[in-house]
Structures are given as C-alpha cells and as structure tokens.
C-alpha cells in the first residue's frame, strides 16, 4: 500500500498545492460531450485545468505574497465577469489601465517581467524581483507536481 520511509510533510506548499490541484481535477468530471469538436473540448478543458492549477497554487501560498493576491483577484474577477456575461449578456468594455513606473530601469525587460509576474505592473523594481523569485519557486513546484500527475496517468 504505502511504502515505508516516505516522509510526508502535510504543511508544505507542495502538498497543499498537490491536494488542491488533485481535488480540482477530480471535480472536473467528464462533461456531456458538447457538439463542438474534440479539439475545442480539449482546449477548454486544458484551459480550465491550467486555471485550476494556478488557482490552487495561489491558494496554497495564501495571501502572504503580492503575486498570489494579484493572481487570486484576477481569477476571481475573470470568473465574475464570465458569469455576468453568461447571465446578462452585457457587454463590458475592457479598460486598459496603464500604470507607468519609474522608467529608469531597462524598459523592455522590466516591462516583460511585469507582464509575466502577476501583479507586477504596480510594483517597484525591488519588490518585483522579490516576487519574481517566489513566483519562480512556486511555478517550479507546480510544474513538478503536474508532471508527476501526468506521468502517473500516462502509465
């Protein structure tokens, strides 16, 4: 059943993320086959899985980090907007907020980094780097966990 000698830390970020993610995956049951093509179905499902992965990672991290807060906020507003559109079919104009930071740093790379890291648009360079570091570690754990899950099911 369970191999002996395996240590399990129930409070680590990895276990938290793994559990949340697996739970989210399990919730995605086999939907009623939509009339759309298989490709689209796979695409939508993969999109859902991706969002579930990011969501579970952000939840596992909690509100301690700026990027996790930003990510949770973004996902929630997206979900709300999605629901609103489905229910009321209201058109919402996408407002693009342009926040200019101190342009002293390298413009192109810093901009790119800000786009990559969630919540990076409103951070100064210092905290941006810090958040990037933490975000990178969380992404790495996310990738590894997803990899092992995928391997497990591929067998």
């Amino acid at each position, binding site marked *: 059943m369970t191999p002996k000698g395996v*240590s399990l830390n129930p409070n680590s970020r990895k276990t938290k993320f793994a559990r949340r993610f697996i739970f989210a995956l399990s919730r995605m049951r086999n939907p009623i086959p939509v009339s759309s093509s298989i490709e689209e179905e796979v695409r939508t499902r993969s999109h859902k899985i991706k969002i579930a992965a990011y969501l579970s990672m952000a939840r596992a991290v909690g509100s301690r980090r700026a990027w996790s807060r930003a990510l949770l906020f973004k996902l929630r507003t997206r979900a709300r907007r999605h629901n609103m559109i489905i229910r009321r079919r209201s058109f919402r104009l996408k407002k693009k907020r342009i926040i200019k930071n101190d342009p002293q740093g390298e413009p192109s790379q810093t901009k790119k980094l800000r786009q990559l890291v969630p919540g990076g648009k409103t951070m100064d360079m210092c905290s941006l780097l810090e958040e990037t570091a933490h975000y990178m570690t969380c992404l790495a754990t996310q990738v590894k966990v997803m990899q092992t899950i995928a391997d497990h099911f591929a067998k």
Partner: protein
Amino acid sequence: MNRALPEMLHCLSGPGNGTDITVLERQRTRVKWQHQEQQNYFVGNFQDLVGDGRCGSVLRHVVTHSVKPDPGFEMNSTITRTSSCPHTEAQVAPEAKGKVSEPAEKMSSTVGRESYKKRKADKVQNTKVVAEDDAKDKRSKVCAEEGESKITTEQTRTKNTTTHPNNRETSADTSRENSKASEVQKPDYIHVRARRGQATDSHSLAERVRREKISERMKYLQDLVPGCNKVTGKAGMLDEIINYVQSLQRQVEFLSMKLATVNPRLDFNIEDLFAKEIFPACSANFPTIGSSSEMTNPAYLQINPAQQMVACCGLEMGVNTPDLMALRRTISAPVSLPETYFDASCFTQLQPPSTWDADLQNLFNLDSNQGRSISFPSQPFTGSIEASNLKMET
C-alpha cells in the same frame, strides 16, 4: 561614570604606561565606555576618542595577532562612527554614534564612512538591509583573521579619511550635525552610509540603497535560475529570468493540455498518488529550489497511519452523500462510531479541516460511483479500523 575612554584606560594602566594593559581590559573598558556613550551625546567625546591612538591599535592587535604601529586611531574613529547595528533597530535614532557591538565587530566596521540618517516608508526593510550588509561585512571580516589584505584596504581607506586633522574635524562636524539631526528621535530613521568619494545628499544615498537592494535580489535570483552563473550584468540576468519564467509557464500550459487529453475518468487513488508518485518521484526530481526546506525538514509522521488517516478522513468527513452511506453500511455499526471520533481527533492533528476535505471524499465516491467497488476503499478502511482500534485502546 561618564569618563572619556582614554581616561578609563589611563586609570587602568597608570600614568604613561599604555602598553601594560592587557587586550582584554582594553576591550572591556571600551565596551563600558560605549555603553556610557549611548546615554550621552557622542559629540563631546568624539574629539577625545579620535585623539586616542592606542584604542585602535588594540583592535588591530586582536585581528592580526601582531602589534603594529598605528593607523589605529583611525580605526577607532571609525568605530565610533558606526551607525547601524543589527541588534538595535529601535534605538537607531537615539544612538548617534555609540553602538553596542562587540569589539571584534567594532573593529571590522566599515571604515571611512559617514553616517547619514533619513526617513523612509519602508524603514524597517532598509534598516534590515543595511544592517544585513553591515552584518555580512562584519562577519566576513571577523572570519578572515588572516585576511590582512582586507584590513590593509581598510587601513588605507581610513588613512585617506582621517590622516589630516582637517578631515577629522570635518567629519566630526558632520557627525555633530548628524547627531543633532538625530535629536529628532523617531523610530523610522534609517542609517545609510555614504562611502568615501560619493555624494552624501539624501537622494543619491537613497538611490544607493535602492541599487544595493536590487543587486542583492538579483544575486538571489541568480542562485534560483539554473544555468545563470555565466551571465553577469543586470540585463543578461533579466533576460535569463524572463526566459525561465516563460518556459515554466509554457510547461504549465503544456502539462495542462496533457492532463486534459488524459482519460477523464481519473482513477484517483490518492493514497498511491501521495505516497508513491508525488513525493518520492518529486524528491528525486526536484532541484533544491523552493521545496528543499520542506523536503529536508519534513514532519515525520507515522506514515502508514498517516496515509490511512488521510484516506479515511476523506472518506469519513461528509456524512451526507448516499454513496458514503452505502459504504458505511458495509462496515459494522459499532466500528463506525469510533471511527468518526477518531477522524475528528486525527483530523485536527493532521491539518485544519477545510472544505476541500469534504470534497476529497467525493473523490472516492466518484471512484466508487464509477467502479461500484468496495474493494478500493476496503484497504484504507481496514487500516482505519485498525488505527481506530489503536486509538480506542490508548
């Protein structure tokens, strides 16, 4: 007891005999004197201290184990000009110059700098950063006992700063100004040091602090990103970081696609997953990135009961689903009750109850729905029964 340090040393040694005092006594007197100076204004004693050449020689003595003639008084002057200390953040402002620090630390304190205080929103961070830098400097210099080169560079720097009495006086003046500025004793002042030959106005100092912070973070990132050792410079590093983050995000997307194409009838055997797949595999694959601390210091639970607890907690939590009731009926009634108690207790031990645990058991129900097999949960159930019996006995 508000005597100047040289007076105290004189008291120890007797008139005219500076070299007879042991090193230890000198250090002790210096520490005492430093303590005193915390309460007084430094200013009045500064000149006295600067003039005392012997104190500095003592410090060098400690480090190099050799007596040398003396740029020692400059060392001393720099000691007295320490500004930030990792131990006393709260007292940063009132302690204009006299800092509580060990003699070894004093000696290795950064030399030839002037202290400057200013206010910032992220004061604590800054103090910590500056303090960290200082602490690092101190530690590195204390450890390098044989690193005379470092000391000689310090000496040259100190020489440059304080060979001439004019310099000393100007530095004394600025220190006096700074100490006056410190009269406004607010806890959110940060001590920033200006290096020799650099501007000392607040803006450039702030810029320097910012730059140092950024470089520190960049170094940390360099350790994180694999294969980044060869690239130097901020631009290249940022490129590497961006590439790495992009590759990680692409990997997540690819894996989510892969998982989507997997047969959606996911046979979740969480026990197996956790025990076999994720953690041993991950421990093999994971580089020491974020999870190293978690992996190397795990909370060693008893594994089998823990796994079974996890499983049966998932199974036992919600009582409302019919599937679970069906499963429960297979268990003998008297055992089920203690199991719930057992679960409550073990659950609180393991992790805080959260809603997803209730859904974990939905997971098993899902599986049982699809498979209509009791055999799957039977294993954890038997394990849980045993465990619950154990619990009952204890």
